[in-house]
Structure formats: C-alpha cells, structure tokens
C-alpha cells in the first residue's frame, strides 16, 4: 500500500464577517465556519474527489491544506511534516511539492508575459537552471501538456480556454510537484475541451505519480477520476468512501440527493415536485446541519435526535473505508 502524503485532522477555518458600524465599535463579529472539523487523508498517486454545492467549503479546504490561507484549527501533515503552523520561510521548500490548479483560467498567467516567459519564470523559482536546461524543460512541459511550440510566443489573451488551461498546468508541473489541488479544473471549459483536460490530468498522474485532491461539482467526472470521494455539506464531510460506492450505494440522504439530481435532469418522466430549501450558513443549526432539508428527517417523522444540539451525527465507519454522518443511514 502506498504511503500517506497528506493527512488532515479536524481542520477548521472560520471567516469572520463584520457587519456595519455597531459591530465594528463593539468588536463583535459573526463567525462563519467555512470548514468545520474535516478529516481526511490522501495516499500517494491517488485521487480524492471533493464534491458539494457551491459555498460548502470545498475550495477553502483546498486552499487551507496548501496553507494558502491559515487554518483556524486542526492539523495538516504533508509527507510527514506538520505544516499547520509553519512560517512562510519554513514552508517555502515544501511549497514546490504542493501546487494548485485554480478554477480561473487566467489565474497565474500574467497577461503581459508571453507563454515562454511564464514557463521560464516557473522553472526558475526554485532552481537556477542553465539556458539550455530551461529550453529542454520547456520542450518537455509542452509535450507533457500537449501544446504546440508556436504558442510559446503568444500572450495569454491570444489563447483559447483549453490552451490557457494547458499553460496553467504546465506552469504547475514546472516545479515538479507531488500533490496537486485541482480546484474545478474543467468547469470553465467547453465539454469537448473538458474531456481533453480530464484525459490529460489522468495521463499526467500515471506518468508522474501525482496525487490529486480533485474539487469539482461535476459528479460524473469526479466519479471517473477519483478513487475516493468525499461529500461536503456546510463545511463538513457528511460521507466519504470509494468512488463507486458513493455513486451507486450512497448512504447519506444528501449524497443521494446530489446523485439523483443528476439522474433527474436526464430522465424524461415528470416527477412529483419535492421541496427542499437551500442551505444557509447564517441559519443557526442544532444537531444535524442537513436536517432542515433532509427528506429522511421528514419521512421518519422529525425525530428529536436529528435536531438535538448535543448530538451532531459523527462520521460512522460502515467498513471498507466508507464513513457517513447520519443517525439513520
């Protein structure tokens, strides 16, 4: 079994929100727990998918495990080093091993630099290679991401979406990372180009032994690329397990809703309308945070345990690494 490259325990990230003059004066602020006690690990050369609706904390997790923002609590261990409290200087040598692909295609692509200069810069961040070495590496990178030589002279604005994505990936590969957090790497692209990028990411993983934390709301793609999938709701992981069991034998009612909404869109029969609201960080929740939208909670006749403030359901182990946070699943 391959070893663990990233181990996250009870990760927390609060964002504070100041509102208006009075709270400013009194110093009171409202705290939004964007990530609220999340634990998971990644084994070398595997992909873990992170899914959930927008605002559930997926991206915050990605940014926090790379220490792009500071965690409010918990522990992040990367390759045996506890990086939770490392200073910027101490982090620097580790940074090159863990990189992020951003959702925004233009992120990290300086609009005033040609592709060649962008890649050259990335190659010289941590090393001082000779010009010949740089030229060799750039050729290698272009080959890895399947980009034409002629694009080197282009500015980012002259590239198509797919090409920008490839340059972004090449730039990340330039520092030879081991862990890549891919935050919605395909959502800004067209379907046909999405498929190219998904294939490319899988190829790179195979050849370079990369480990991915794959954040996406595109469920079929996540199921395709991931070994394990974690489903998030309101800052917590509510279910996690092997990709095929999450997709085909989901246990948590929220996971079921997510995957069935995919099937609903495809089916041609008209179903009886079901109602559930949207989630809201600002609404105080007691007990299970999914209860206000939960069909199971309604079906069971609103059991008290679901809204008992003292018993937020913990992640229970169902065997084979499948965990679920629901009293009834």
């Amino acid at each position, binding site marked *: 079994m391959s070893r663990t490259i990233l181990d996250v325990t009870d990760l927390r990230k609060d964002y504070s929100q100041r509102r208006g003059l009075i709270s400013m004066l009194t110093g009171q602020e409202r705290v939004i727990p964007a990530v609220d006690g999340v634990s998971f690990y990644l084994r070398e050369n595997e992909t873990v998918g992170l899914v959930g609706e927008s605002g559930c904390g997926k991206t915050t997790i990605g940014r926090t495990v790379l220490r792009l923002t500071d965690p409010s609590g918990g522990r992040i261990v990367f390759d045996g080093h506890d990086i939770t409290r490392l200073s910027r200087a101490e982090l620097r040598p580790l940074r090159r091993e863990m990189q992020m692909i951003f959702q925004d295609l233009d992120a990290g692509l300086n609009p005033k630099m040609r592709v060649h200069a962008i890649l050259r810069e990335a190659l010289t961040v941590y090393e001082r290679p000779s010009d010949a070495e740089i030229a060799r590496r750039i050729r290698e990178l272009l080959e890895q991401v399947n980009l034409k030589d002629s694009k080197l002279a282009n500015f980012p604005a002259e590239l198509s979406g797919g090409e920008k994505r490839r340059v972004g990936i090449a730039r990340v590969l330039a520092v030879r990372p081991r862990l890549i957090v891919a935050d919605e790497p395909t959502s800004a692209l067209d379907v046909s180009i999405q498929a190219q990028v998904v294939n490319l990411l*899988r190829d790179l993983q195979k050849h370079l032994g990369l480990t991915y934390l794959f954040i996406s709301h595109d469920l079929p793609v996540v199921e*395709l690329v991931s070994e394990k999938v974690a489903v998030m709701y309101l800052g917590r992981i509510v279910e996690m397990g092997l990709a095929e069991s999450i997709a085909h034998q989901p246990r948590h009612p929220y996971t079921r809703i997510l995957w069935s909404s995919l099937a609903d869109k495809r089916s041609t029969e008209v179903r009886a309308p079901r109602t559930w609201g949207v989630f809201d960080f600002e609404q105080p929740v007691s007990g299970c945070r999914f209860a206000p939208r939960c069909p199971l909670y309604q079906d069971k006749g609103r059991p008290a345990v679901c809204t008992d403030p003292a018993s937020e359901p913990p992640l229970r182990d169902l065997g084979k690494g499948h965990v679920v946070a629901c009293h009834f699943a």
Partner: protein
Amino acid sequence: MDAPLLAVEDLRTYFYSRAKRAFIRSVDGVSLHVAPGETLGMVGESGSGKSVTALSAAGLVSAAPGVIGGRIDLRSNGTRRNLLDGLERYVRVQVQDGRIMAVEKDNRGWRRRAEALMQGVRGKEIAMIFQNPRSALNPYSTIGTQLVETIRLHTSAKGEGEARERALHWLERVRIDSPRLRFDNFPFGMSGGMCQRAMIAMALSAEPSLLIADEPTTGLDATIQSRIVELLAELKAETGTATLLISHDISVIQRLSDRIAVMYGGTVVETGRAAKVLAPQAEARHPYTAALLGSVPSADTIRRKSYLQAIEGEVLDTIEVPRGCRFYGRCNRVTEAIRENCAGLEPPLGEVAPGHKVRCWLYPAARNA
C-alpha cells in the same frame, strides 16, 4: 405538421473583433423552425452561435455589424411577419476567399426599421430567460413590482389590483414558497435559484407565444439545476409555450426538448427529433454530435475507468471559415472516399430520415441533396 410559429431562414449575424482585426461569423446561415407548443433544444460549444441565434431572433443584438441578413418569420394572431423584412437594403457585405473583408451597414436606418418591426413583439410575443437571472432583474425594484409592470404592459390585466393578483399567482406557479412575502423582496435578498424562478415567472406572465431560454440552469448548483429543469418541464406541460432552449448541458436538452438542433461553427450541423438525435445507437449521426455525446462520461466509461473520447483541437473561431466542412479539422470519421469533398465543399443538410437532417458527407443524403 403545424405551420411553424418561428421560422428562421439563412440567418447571418457577424461581429467585428478589434483584437483580431477580423469579422467573426457567429451565425452563418442558420435555418431552423419551432412549431407551436414545441421545445427546440440548441446544443453546441461556446462560440458555436446558439446564443447569438436566439438574441438575433429577439432583436437583441446591439454590437456592430450584428444581424446582416436572413429571414425571421414569426406567426402571431394568425398573421406572419418577417422581423427582418426589408432590412437587407441597409447592408452590403464584401467577401474574399471565405473571409469577410468589409461590412457596410447603415446602423441608424437598420435600427429604426428593426425597432418598428419589433414593436409589440419583444417581451410580449417573444420572452427571454437568461443565464444570469440576477443581472436580468432590476436590482432597485422588488420582484413584485417588476412582475406587475410586465403584466400591466403585456396582458389584458391593466388594473393594479388585478395585475397584483396575477403576479402572486405566477409566483405560486413557479413554486416560490411564501409568494406574498417574496413579492416584496429585492433580487439581492434571494438565492440564484429563486431569482431564476422569478425570472421565469416574469417571462411567462406576458403570455408569450415563444419563450427563449438561454442557458437557464448554467451557473446554478446541481441540486437547484434539477429543480429548475423540473419546473420548466412542468410549465411546458401546463402552458404549452413554444420554447427555444439553449444549453451546452446535453442532459438538460435531453430532458426538455422535442427536437434538437446541434450547432457548430455558426451553422446547424444536425437537427431532428430529440429521441432520434440523442439515441445511444443512432443510425446516422453527425460526427460532432457523436463526439459531444462521447465527451461526457457515460456509466460505461466510469465503470471501466477508460478515457473520455475528447474532440481534438479547438472550437472553430469562425473568422476564417474553411472552404469545406467546418468540422473537417477535428473530425475523426473522414474516409478516403469523401476526403476531397470534406476538405473542399461544405456539405448541405441532407435528410437521412424523415425530419432528421445531418450536414455530413458520410451520408448519401448529403451527396444527393
């Protein structure tokens, strides 16, 4: 078959790109029709011209040169009117080797004439739902006020009280919970899904004969998306409004459309009944449609963890339109027998089965057409 409610013929809409110093042929000879009560789904990648086709039909293209030719026939109250009637005399196009060299357009004359033709059509006969509901709603006035305004302007309910009743009724019909409360909400106080519902209510409250839904679910969360799709399906069954539905999400198109038009590089490359075009084993199919369907992970792909069938290359930018088939450069089904045709001559839309047309040299229908 019923006479079509909307019939678009040889529509051409071009734009000028300053950055590229060239004309972009966003819509380049599109013909399609929508029958009363029917939903026509338009699929294709971004830049394929689906939105611009719809915007042209609604007379909402403002960038120059914009619509330069074609017919848009709309039937309403038993009469047909061409929304581009007599407009061609304001435009002159110079073409050289498949590249647009210059477009002369008398924009003021065109605009005056077009606005006169659109009078009483836009908003009333043709209503639209856009991708981003929040930007289409007025942020300074409540949902209720905006609905009442639409209803008083476009329907027989001219009185304040009557219009208000209807507005509340519409909020209920689009399943907005506690409509009386939401009536006084501003768009910023509502979620994206709720805004989209309000937008749908507003579009339908004018009782249009044609609804244009441009990416109505894009940008919403997966669970909300399926709710909106469900709502659109229910309203379609209830009101029977003819709909031009635009989406790049094949599952949405599949769920809601009766017929489908697949667009590529500013033209329709395949059209036919939804069940035929999207059938897992279609007898005849445009290679682009096949590739589009293949780039979405299927149950089989996922199970076997195989690679997705990506379409190599990039979406056509329609500046320099190739002489042959627009998909030729990316097509993986070119055979030696047809290569010469593919490279040199744009195939016509050939009828491969009744009502099912494919623009591809693979099929004898195109060769005989």
